[in-house]
């Protein structure tokens, strides 16, 4: 036996508190450092207590905040400084990235594109993003260098954009050039491929430094090859970059393009937004949805029309026949891709929340402070939906009246 023998008597004597007439022992302080810290259910419960409520309420999600006795609480690390950006000073090679950045913002697909680019660049390479406008998100997304394209990002000029990328390829000589396999990115990649005459590895689903993989022949076979120069990356197949933020150093690149051939063939381009009232739910950009807490559906329809939104509903209303089935949001209805979701009187059952998981911004009106929909929302309003809806109509009316 190598373990020293315990002496309970001496341990107890050491825990005796001085000064008291009657022997008193502070046994809580006893547990040795090598042991697992001792839990104290009483302090745990006290730390989970929601302040202010008349009735005892415990917030169980606070579990682990003060899990151990104060005497054993580990040293809290000092306030963490924001992580230093990773700098690649002299990259061995470059990976050029052409994100879509619709509306000047980095989308999910763009982030995955940077994830793929970082995968190809490894430790010694650098990712180089050619963007229409700088964005603070580029560094955290995984861009080592950025350059701003000279062209107007809102004009429709795919040939000009392709010529610019070819110019950047000439100036930087990147080892890989990555595009998103989206409507715009896929088009751009194919234009660049025919301009440079290089093969394109389209729709890559697996990206690693050693091999790329893509589906072909109706997804019956998978084609693999060593990373080629031009690659388009499919959506939702590659993880976005999750490491420390990169530097996103701004550089200037000579982007002189010699526009020849078909330049100027496009006489005019006009954007026609989708009609929100008739667009399918899955395509809608802004959805206003009613749940069991909404009783006046005529009023709801007027609010939806006034906001210029697409109507939606929870399953309760669709089951009751108050809303058509194709308006149901959720696991057994439609999964939305909207930018903003406005939920009126919806509790936020998991089956409903699955349908709005991809929505960036959520507004919820509910009478219940503890509804899951309110917990998920970016703006939660604890009020009767039947009162808020006419107030919104009145407010819009007033604004229109104020206009000269």
């Amino acid at each position: 036996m190598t373990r020293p023998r315990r002496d309970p008597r001496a341990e107890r004597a050491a825990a005796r508190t001085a000064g008291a007439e009657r022997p008193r022992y502070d046994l809580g302080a006893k547990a040795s450092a090598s042991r697992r810290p001792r839990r104290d259910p009483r302090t745990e419960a006290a730390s989970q207590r929601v302040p202010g409520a008349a009735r005892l309420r415990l917030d169980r999600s606070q579990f682990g905040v003060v899990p151990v006795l104060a005497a054993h609480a580990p040293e809290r690390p000092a306030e963490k400084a924001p992580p230093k950006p990773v700098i690649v000073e002299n990259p061995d090679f470059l990976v050029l990235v052409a994100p879509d950045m619709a509306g000047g913002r980095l989308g999910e697909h763009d982030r995955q594109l940077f994830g793929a680019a970082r995968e190809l660049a490894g430790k010694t390479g650098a990712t180089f993003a050619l963007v229409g406008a700088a964005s603070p998100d580029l560094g955290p997304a995984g861009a080592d260098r950025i350059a701003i394209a000279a062209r107007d990002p809102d004009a429709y000029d795919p040939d000009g954009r392709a010529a610019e990328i070819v110019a950047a390829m000439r100036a930087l000589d990147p080892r890989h050039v990555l595009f998103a396999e989206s409507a715009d990115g896929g088009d751009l990649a194919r234009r660049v491929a025919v301009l440079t005459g290089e093969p394109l590895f389209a729709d890559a689903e697996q990206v690693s430094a050693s091999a790329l993989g893509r589906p072909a022949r109706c997804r019956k076979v998978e084609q693999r090859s060593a990373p080629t120069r031009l690659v388009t990356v499919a959506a939702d197949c590659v993880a976005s970059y999750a490491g420390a933020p990169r530097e996103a150093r701004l550089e200037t690149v000579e982007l002189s393009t010699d526009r020849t051939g078909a330049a100027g063939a496009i006489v005019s381009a006009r954007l026609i937004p989708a009609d929100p009232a008739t667009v399918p739910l899955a395509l809608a950009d802004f959805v206003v949805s009613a749940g069991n807490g909404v009783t006046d559906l005529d009023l709801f329809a007027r609010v939806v029309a006034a906001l210029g939104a697409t109507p939606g509903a929870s399953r309760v209303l669709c089951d009751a026949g108050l809303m058509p089935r194709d308006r149901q949001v959720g696991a057994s209805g439609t999964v939305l891709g909207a930018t903003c979701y406005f939920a009126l009187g919806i509790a936020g059952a998991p089956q409903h929340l699955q349908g709005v998981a991809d929505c960036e911004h959520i507004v919820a009106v509910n009478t219940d402070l503890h509804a899951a929909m309110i917990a998920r929302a970016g703006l939660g309003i604890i009020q009767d939906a039947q009162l808020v809806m006419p107030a919104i109509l009145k407010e819009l009316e007033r604004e229109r009246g104020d206009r000269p």
Partner: protein
Amino acid sequence: MKLVVLLSVGRHPVSGKPALPRTEAQAIRIAAELGASIGLHVGPDAFPAEAALGHGLDRAVHLACAGGPDPIGPLVARIATEAPDVVLAGRRGQGGEETGLAPYAVAARLGVPIVPDAVAIRPAGDGLVEVDQALPKGALRRLVVRTPLVVTVHPNAPAPLPYAFGKARRGSIERVDAAAADLAAVAPAPEERPYRKRPKMMRAAGGSAADRLKAVTGEATAGGAKILDGPTPEDAAKEVLAFLRRVGVLAPAGAGATGPTA
């Protein structure tokens, strides 16, 4: 207006039998409604030409060659002699490499512009056509483009006309051997192996079941929320409208119409 539709041999995704890709059948409908149009196919098989007649064309050209070579050379040569206003193609092939590069290569070799993802084409007078291009989220871009041009068709275009046997019998197929000078070998295909389905990427794979549920419902991304407990309905309305304007889904106050009532 004179149109050419590029036809390829597709495979049915389930049965694996030869089938005309759906976007090409949609292209045939667009072309047939616009004017005199012919179908054009390069390859060993006359099947796409026959299918095209059944779906609504009166005439198809089959440039026969042994299987394997690059179809771009013969396609470009024939299109140059036909001199059409608009060349229509599918967005991607189906059952082959599925890279969607062929229309771009044809446009580059002809030196004409290419417009991808069209759902409708209308003549706009005097050497111009109006092309409606499908964008994500149901939006459209309406382009006015100078002819000649190459257009690829988006799956959201009007559904193809049904196959009619009598129409396929009445139409004519012109079979020509492709000039050997136009034929070039294609780059060898990369290594192939059976397709393996991989698990879908999850936003944040957490440790516990509760974490995974949060990842599915999006609660993991929630945070920085603003909760108003019991505001007056008027304050609530102002707050909601301000939020909607901040995230950019509602036009700013006084900036004109939002919705049909405005």
